[in-house]
């Protein structure tokens, strides 16, 4: 008997601890947040763009030039480059994700960029678009078709782009770029250092093209067309366009922050102003609080003493879920908050199933203690069955959804799962702990429900 009560008290203490953690680690609630230890500081709720304000950009990547097996690599290095680029501009917690083409998402390789706090899309796209596209091309075979146009003024135009064919060596194999000065002419040049794969590729290309021209392309235009003299194995190359020192320096900066391995185009953009996000967050919290109070009121009025216990269990459930949101962490969106709020409603379901069973057992003439254990045992199967379909739906939604749908599916799915366990274990412990109230008339009244006396 005492053991049960001690466990119940421990759980109550745990609940208080959880509430304390949620409070301490939330800058909006805790006034002395700045002075807290780093443990608390590192776990505020992570808010999605629709609550914090910011930009959501979707780029389509053109991977037609990338060999089939290397698309994933190319996309990953594209992501790294954009991430570096975005970090360079001091955006806090940007999210850059690759969405690969598949049967589900369609044929395009996409890059999704979330920039919290950036509401000026023009600036945002500019800073991403500034990244240079760099690649090396070699002379096309002599028999390749070439188009020569004779202009109206009688001049002959040879289209440069048809003279060269693309190689595999692109900006993704670039390790770093440095500013150098030619020792004889003191012209500024840009020195390139390739990574391991790049070095190998560069050695092969130079070996096979001795005496021929290679073209270094930047942002789709040739900036330098040197003649290969010998095989270069050191993985180093030089671009000597006719740069001014300032131009060369800028180019080095751009190349170092990352050259894009594949060209990208912006296909979708979404911006949410900070005030709109704040309002949505405030409204979401208000709705959650009011929803919770309504349920608590209903449970206590309808189920009396077990209702009070259900409210306790529900409070613990809310605490556990909020801590999970913080620790995992789960990015909260308006839809995610909706999922969480609905899960509060669904969480009560398990308790209601148990209490209805309990009531039946009481009516059948059993003692309160017996009814409690029978109620739990017999309700478990209904609880399991009634939650399976919600969990299945949540899994599918999570699988297919875009970010806001994923948020909803995750919070709802997590909620249903956690609530199943919390309702059963926590309510049971509390109900056992108060068995001492005995079998009197008052006790029977407290354990009844609805309009009955």
């Amino acid at each position, binding site marked *: 008997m005492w053991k049960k009560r001690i466990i119940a008290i421990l759980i109550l203490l745990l609940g208080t601890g959880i509430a304390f953690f949620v409070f301490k680690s939330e800058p909006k609630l805790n006034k002395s947040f700045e002075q807290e230890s780093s443990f608390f500081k590192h776990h505020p709720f992570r808010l999605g763009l629709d609550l914090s304000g910011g930009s959501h950009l979707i780029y389509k990547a053109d991977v037609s030039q990338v060999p089939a097996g290397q698309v994933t690599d190319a996309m990953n290095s594209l992501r790294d480059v954009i991430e570096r680029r975005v970090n360079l501009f001091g955006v806090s917690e940007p999210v850059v994700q690759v969405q690969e083409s598949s049967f589900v998402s*369609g044929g395009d390789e996409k890059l999704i960029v979330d920039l919290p706090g950036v509401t000026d899309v023009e600036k945002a796209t500019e800073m991403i678009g500034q990244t240079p596209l760099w690649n090396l091309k070699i002379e096309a075979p002599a028999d390749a078709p070439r188009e020569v146009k004779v202009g109206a003024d009688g001049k002959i135009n040879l289209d440069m782009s048809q003279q060269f064919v693309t190689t595999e060596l692109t900006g993704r194999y670039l390790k770093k770029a440095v500013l150098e000065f030619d020792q004889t002419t003191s012209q500024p040049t840009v020195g390139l250092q390739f990574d391991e794969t790049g070095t190998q590729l560069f050695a092969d290309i130079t070996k096979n093209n001795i005496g021929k021209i290679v073209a270094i392309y930047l942002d789709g235009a040739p900036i330098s067309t040197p003649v290969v003299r010998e095989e270069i194995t050191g993985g180093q190359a030089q671009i000597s366009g006719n740069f001014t020192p300032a131009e060369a320096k800028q180019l080095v900066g751009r190349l170092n922050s990352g050259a894009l391995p594949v060209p990208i185009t912006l296909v*979708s953009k979404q911006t949410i102003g900070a005030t709109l996000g704040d309002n949505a967050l405030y409204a979401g919290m208000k709705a959650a609080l009011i929803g919770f109070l309504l349920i608590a009121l209903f449970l206590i009025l309808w189920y009396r003493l077990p209702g009070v216990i259900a409210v306790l269990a529900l409070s613990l459930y809310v605490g556990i879920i909020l801590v999970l949101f913080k620790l995992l962490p789960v990015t909260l969106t308006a839809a995610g908050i909706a999922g969480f709020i609905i899960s509060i409603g669904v969480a009560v379901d398990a308790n209601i199933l148990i209490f209805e069973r309990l009531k039946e057992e009481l009516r059948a003439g059993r003692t309160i203690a017996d009814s409690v254990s029978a109620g739990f045992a017999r309700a478990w199967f209904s609880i399991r069955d009634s939650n399976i379909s919600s969990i299945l739906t949540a899994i599918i939604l999570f699988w297919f959804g875009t970010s806001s749908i994923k948020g909803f599916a995750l919070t709802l799915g997590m909620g249903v799962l956690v609530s199943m366990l919390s309702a059963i274990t926590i309510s049971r412990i509390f109900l056992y702990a108060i068995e001492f109230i005995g079998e009197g008339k008052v006790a029977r009244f407290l354990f009844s429900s609805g309009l009955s006396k």
Partner: protein
Amino acid sequence: MFIIKHKKIFIGISVLLVLLSITSICVFGLKIGIDFKGGALSEVEYKSVRPIQADLNPALEALNYGPISLQPTGDLSYIVKSRDLTEAEHSQLLTTLSQNGQSALEEKSFNSIGPSVGKELTRKAILSIVLVSLVLICFIAFAFRKVSKPVSSWKYGIIAIASLLHDVLIPVGIFAFLSHTFGVEIDSLFIVAVLTILGLSVSDTIVIFDRIRENLRNRVGNDFKETVGTSLNQSFVRSICTSLTVILVLLALVFFGPESTKYFALMLAFGMFFGTYSSIFLASPLLVLTEEIQNKKKK
């Protein structure tokens, strides 16, 4: 027993509601939002005075972006819809809306979705609807694999699916009406709402059928009709209480929650309501009706 006795009335109400919903969908139609068809949506708020639409229209037409719709919202804001815009076109649009800077404004949100992204979302939406339906049908089949007398298990399945259709069609019908009256459009959250309704209402129907199955095994009641009636009596309080709590939180979301999830929560609340209604007043009476028809055939 009251419900079983008057089953034809309740089934009739459901049929009527479904017919009304289908009519509403056909008459009002469902407006597809930019999530699926691509386009741009911008919300702007003027600092002091909102210029009237007629004053803005000529300048907007001169932009040549195709049809641009202005929808007043609040006291100072417009929601502006057009085809998807590039960054340059977007800033041009803002300049035009501010009448070249004469009426200062702030852009609250902007959303431009290219046609390819819209196509992708459409594909995902259709796939997830198909998949959720398949999974739920499998789940129903699995849940009722052992019941056979006096109504065979596949009939439970078909009735569960019929009441599922009922639960989805009615909220969609209401949505069509709302979309006609308030200009609400179908976005990805709408699809989520439909799928969540499917999940929640299946579980509700299954809990009641579960009870019927248990009572059949324990030989409760003199005939099938009575067994179903007793099962309903035992489980309807739970059904109503559960969906009541969910509806309570959903209503909190509708009235106090964020603007973006308002219609989503409303859809779900209707779904919850009709989901519970159908599992008590439609699915079980249909089950009894099926059994009666079977008996008549035998005679």
